[in-house]
């Protein structure tokens, strides 16, 4: 297994197919596996350096870990599980206990024993437990896979807040949409090595990363700035390099910056400006790059340039032919605003 990448604060998303080595990689970062060769550096501190025979044991790393299989302590109730790391971490900063249990919706579970929880409940407790230990870095291995979409939507903004508090996160997920607005950087793994790594808007708009393509979740991630709020319709207008967009009402001050995912499949192209449609957001641009044609796959990806940003669009080859798209063709991209914050 080979992997070299850097992540400077913020959220780094780790993508890759089942068995591609994501868990193995974060185990190395967390200190649960000793790499044969390699170095791990956090905040300038050398955690692992096989050449210098340095290996900081996990308990001195202050790296929180939300495991794929939750690993709650069966001998403790939920409250004691949550407080396990809290007591060990010195200091009083960080997120409060009440905030965490409120947000994760586990207040009614506090006195329960770990064994009786449902799959999703276990995972939420595990997230809370890792957060409360005041980690310097948070490793999350598919933390939301067992959760329903609504619960996911509740927890994601919370993770966003963590990122804004300055806790870097290394986040394993199969769903680009899940980390779209969260991640600053993306690392894509394939067969134990890094296939692509870089800033999220760069990597996510790449048409050549098979793992992203096969994820059917390809999309572009845009940096946006809050422009105005419209509480009546519960919308917020943001400005991106690609143009202005409406998104569901945000609790952010005007001027705040954020990231949004525009999924390739949520964009409809047309040659003429659409009229009288339910698509609130229409961006003008031109085709910049055509993806590869895959036998048996009716779809293709196209990269647009709208203003100063790229958008990825997935459409059928048939539409492509009917619209006669080529690099340079001017198009209008209609984006359903509801898709922005999925």
């Amino acid at each position, binding site marked *: 297994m080979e992997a070299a990448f850097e992540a400077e604060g913020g959220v780094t998303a780790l993508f890759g197919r089942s068995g591609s080595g994501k868990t193995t990689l974060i185990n190395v970062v967390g200190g649960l596996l000793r790499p044969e060769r390699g170095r791990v550096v956090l905040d300038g501190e050398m955690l692992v350096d096989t050449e210098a025979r340095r290996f900081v044991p996990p308990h001195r790393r202050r790296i929180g870990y939300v495991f794929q299989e939750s690993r709650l302590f069966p001998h403790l109730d939920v409250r004691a599980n949550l407080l396990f790391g809290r007591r*060990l971490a010195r200091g009083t900063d960080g997120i409060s206990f009440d905030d965490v249990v409120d947000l994760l919706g586990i207040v009614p579970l506090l006195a329960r024993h770990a064994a009786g929880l449902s799959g999703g409940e276990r995972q939420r407790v595990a997230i809370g*437990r890792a957060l409360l*230990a005041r980690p310097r870095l948070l490793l999350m291995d598919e933390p939301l896979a067992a959760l329903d979409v609504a619960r996911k939507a509740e927890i994601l903004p919370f993770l966003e807040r963590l990122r804004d508090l300055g806790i870097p996160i290394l986040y394993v997920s199969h769903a680009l949409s899940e980390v779209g607005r969260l991640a600053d950087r993306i690392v894509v793994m394939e067969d134990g090595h890094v296939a692509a790594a870089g800033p999220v808007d760069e990597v996510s708009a790449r048409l050549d990363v098979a793992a992203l393509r096969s994820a059917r979740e390809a999309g572009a991630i845009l940096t946006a700035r809050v422009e105005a709020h419209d509480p009546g319709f519960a919308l917020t207008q943001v400005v991106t390099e690609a143009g202005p967009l409406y998104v569901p009402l945000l609790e952010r001050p005007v001027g705040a910056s954020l990231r949004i995912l525009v999924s390739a499949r949520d964009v409809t192209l047309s040659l003429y400006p659409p009229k009288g449609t339910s698509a609130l957001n229409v961006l003008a641009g031109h085709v910049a790059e055509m993806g590869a044609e895959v036998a048996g796959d009716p779809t293709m990806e196209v990269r647009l340039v709208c203003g100063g940003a790229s958008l990825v669009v997935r459409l059928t080859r048939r539409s492509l032919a009917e619209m006669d798209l080529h690099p340079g063709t001017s198009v209008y991209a209609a984006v359903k605003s509801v898709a922005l914050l999925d």
Partner: protein
Amino acid sequence: MTDWLTPDEWAALRLSLLVAATGTLASLPPGIGIAYLLARRRFWGKSMLDMVVHLPLVLPPVVTGYLLLLGFGRRGLFGAWLAEIGIVFSFRWTGAALACAVMGFPLLVRALRLSIEAVDRRLEQAAATLGANPLQVFVRVTLPLILPGVIAGMVLAFAKAMGEFGATITFVSNIPGETQTLPSAIYTLTQIPGGEAGAMRLTLISIIVSMAALLMSELLARGVARRLAA
């Protein structure tokens, strides 16, 4: 009560309880330590340590008692040295407790080791990522998880201590009020004409005491199991 036991027999009962409890409790910390080493570590001489722990089981108790006498008697190798710092085993109840601890040790260690080996190490890893150092991991995760093994081991050791006489009588003799435990008293009674009735009476008492200890341990274990599984 006092009617059906002579003062000497009362003394033997009291002494047996003291000896069994002391021997069991005193052997717990080293038992846990050694069980942990045997379950988790690889080191030179591990087989040797394993063997030494099992020795009291393999040897006839009389031989164990004799070896204890040679080692920890007043003139023994360690005995003479320990006597200088004020620890005397020979012909004291402390010696009986030592004998019981030694005889019960393999049983205790095996139970503990089996439990430690069954602990899911991923839980210990999780504790480490939460900032627990190895000692804290052991105390706050491993130990609570092996409580059923601790209880089982202590019951075995205690029961063994209540029945042990071969090593005890050989090591510290059979002095009423001093080193005469219940099983030694029972043994003596089996050696004299007409002693059977007395032996049976004392045996019953010994059974009742152990039964009580066993029941208590089962209740404890059930509580622990409920905490672990419910």
